[in-house]
């Protein structure tokens, strides 16, 4: 693949006079992967639309996420007025605008918590894999313990007892879901630390922190992005389940999960309200998983499935 890529772009290769790096090769393969590109674009559009929720609500749908209209409760999906594009709920609020605001919450929690997971996971994985021995035992104990409690049980108990704000919930998820990343990084570090270049670094007196961050980390980093994409999806699913159970973000803030709970109690009046929040979660998570898959295939073609 790489040689074909280089041959196809002789001018560029000439200009730089260096072999195409990992990221260039990956980008070259990624561009050809239509499904991944479509998913990534969908993700970006969803993200931008959610970020621009107040603007879109003001200028396109001409309503707010809280504005009620008791004369048009359970409005059918319609283009006129545009605010009922996906219908109106039991208080006549615009479903589409609430979905956009829900997207803000879901994506915020997903990305911020996943970032925290990755940070904690990578740090602990590097430390456990590099130092081994006692430190590794302690970290492994943490990992097995956390892996042995069904996460949703922990989250539900935490939410029910603490009634956390969206930010606190994000932090808790960020602190709880890192075990998969740690396991992966730890395994990789175990293997890498025996390689010659690490011994060489150690021989010239590089301190452990430098070896971990400058020599080992760059080797595991690419696949961390894959884990991140999948992690964000998983967190969004968990958060929406939590909100569905009435234990997610505080009531009042629209969220996809709680919109579904609402819609479920009124589905005989307005069955279409059940469709859009679930579809929003599904499409978002699906896109994230597909991007994760595509990234993995692009970064490490040996792992390509089939």
């Amino acid at each position, binding site marked *: 693949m790489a040689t074909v890529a280089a041959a196809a772009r002789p001018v560029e290769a000439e200009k730089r006079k260096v072999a195409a790096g990992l990221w260039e090769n990956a980008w070259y393969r990624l561009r050809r992967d239509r499904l991944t590109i479509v998913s990534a674009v969908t993700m970006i559009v969803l993200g931008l639309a959610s970020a621009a929720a107040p603007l879109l609500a003001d200028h396109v749908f001409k309503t707010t996420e809280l504005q009620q209209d008791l004369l048009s409760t359970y409005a059918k999906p319609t283009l006129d007025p545009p605010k009922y594009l996906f219908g109106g709920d039991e208080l006549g609020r615009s479903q589409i605008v609430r979905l956009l605001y829900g997207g803000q919450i879901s994506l915020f929690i997903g990305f911020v918590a996943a970032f925290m997971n990755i940070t904690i996971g990578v740090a602990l994985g590097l430390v456990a894999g590099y130092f081994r021995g006692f430190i590794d035992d302690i970290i492994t104990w943490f990992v097995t313990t956390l892996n042995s409690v069904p996460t949703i049980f922990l989250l539900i108990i935490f939410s029910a*007892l603490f009634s956390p704000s969206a930010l606190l919930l994000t932090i808790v998820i960020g602190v709880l879901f890192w075990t998969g990343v740690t396991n992966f990084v730890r395994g990789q570090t175990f293997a890498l630390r025996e390689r010659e270049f690490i011994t060489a670094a150690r021989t010239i007196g590089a301190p452990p922190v430098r070896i971990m961050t400058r020599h080992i980390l760059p080797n595991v980093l690419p696949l961390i992005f894959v884990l991140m994409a999948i992690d964000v999806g998983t967190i969004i699913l968990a958060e929406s389940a939590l909100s569905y159970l009435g234990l997610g973000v505080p009531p009042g803030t629209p969220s996809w999960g709680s919109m579904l709970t609402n819609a479920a109690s009124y589905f005989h009046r307005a069955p279409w309200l059940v469709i859009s929040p679930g579809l929003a979660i599904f499409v978002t998570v*699906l896109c994230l998983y597909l991007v994760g898959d595509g990234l993995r295939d692009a970064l490490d073609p040996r792992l390509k499935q089939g």
Partner: protein
Amino acid sequence: MRTYIIRRLLQAIPTLIGISILVFAITRLAPGDPVRLYTFGALQITEEDIQGLREHYGLDKSLPEQYVNWLTLAVQGDFGKSLQYNRPALPLLLERLPATLQLALVALVLQLAIGIPLGVVAALKRGTWIDNFIRVFAVAGHAIPTFWIGLLFIIIFAVGLRWLPSQGILTVGKDVWDIPDRISHIIMPAFVLALGGIANYSRYLRTETLDVIAQDYIRTAHAKGLRERSVVYVHALRNALIPMVTALGPLLAVLIGGSLVIEQVFTWPGVGQFTYAAARSKDYPVIMAGVMVASTLLVVSYLIRDIAYVVVDPRIKVR
């Protein structure tokens, strides 16, 4: 083999201790005083009574002291009395365990029964529309929120078509051994719970089967004139199934964790639903017993998986 099993059993102990610390910390650090909550509105109650109740439940001691007290009793199966039902918490939960196990086991069977054939077919029909369809399904089955699918199923099959009951484990008034009635109740929740696993197994098995059919011994099997069917089922599938045992771990976690949400959607009277209700009413003894039961279930499942792995694959050396 025996030493391996014993070692593996011993390894479960620190894990269970870790879980107990975690759960204890969360429940005891939570804001809100359970004694005040339960005496709220009781006008005749005095400060003294509240103090008495607190002493009665041991809530006046220091946290480490409370933990040790709680743990000593917990290992004997005594998680304290439910504040809500005034009955021992563990028996209350164990009454609901069969329902959860039933759901999880039926879901597990469905996962294997649907997921494995899908994976094999996808691998054998590689590159065709069947393969593509199964691959899309394998990702989608993971990404779809189970509670949403559950709701849609209820709306379609219970409310719309009236084929299946929407909730519960048994029609009220029916005999406990009314198997057809039980089956009609379990189909929807079990299938929804199995969805993620079906996706996972089909995807996993597709990769494994593709790996295996590229091996020399498969070519040998073909070359000596075996029928396609026996090549696939006797030679390929058996070898492709071995690594699947490792995939069981995360899936069991999904089964046990996911059952909480599914039990809620289908009002299934299991451990998850009961723990959820306890969490909402701050019934601490039941919450702690619930998490411990669910976690123990998971620890035991992991144990069985690890032992099964060694049994299934003779290439693995037991250390």
